[in-house]
């Protein structure tokens, strides 16, 4: 039963990732593009956690932690660049 739920969750997050890619390509404004990139990072973390369950190993949690930090820093720096024209003041 866990296997089928796992496949369902894989399909949902994979479909979400595809929608984010579509939104990155055809965004009406630059804010939507940043938001879509941030959502892609979150979906990638979810996929990594699900892949860890699928393989039965805890090895992937360090990778998802690093991806979470990188995604947060990149989103904040991108928005700050748009706000102030400068990242580190």
């Amino acid at each position: 039963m866990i296997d089928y739920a796992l496949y369902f969750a894989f399909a949902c997050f994979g479909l979400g990732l595809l929608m984010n890619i579509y939104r990155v390509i055809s965004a009406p404004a630059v804010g939507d593009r940043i938001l879509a990139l941030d959502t892609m990072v979150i979906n990638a973390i979810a996929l990594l956690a699900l892949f860890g369950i699928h393989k039965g190993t805890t090895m992937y949690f360090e990778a998802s932690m690093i991806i979470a930090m990188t995604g947060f820093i990149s989103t904040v720096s991108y928005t700050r660049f748009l706000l102030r024209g400068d990242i580190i003041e």
Partner: protein
Amino acid sequence: MLVEILIAACLVISGIFGLVGSLGLIKLPDPMMRLHAPTKATTLGVGGALIASMLYFYFVVGTFSFHELMITLFLFLTAPITGHFVAKTHLHLTRKPGDLPPTGSDRPWASYESDAERARIEAAAEGDTAG
């Protein structure tokens, strides 16, 4: 058996919420509405997946790992900050300073204050406290 049902329910709920978050990013009409879908629904979806992972490793594999809790805490802390910054960027790029209500002080909204103006006002304030 009960644990399996719990893990499967967590996985299915997390998948649905993740899908709803990404769908809302495409379907909602207004940029400020679109901000809500990923920062709320997708964060909840990831939280569900990580809780399912924690339950799986504790009850099925037999090892307890607290990495998931760390990732969940980090995501739940950073999602509001990200939403705030994206909303501020959107306001900054689409609204003119005249569209916003007055601040109630002699200084403008912080996003529109130029660096030279801010430096001048802060230098004047320091001069006041020193003098």
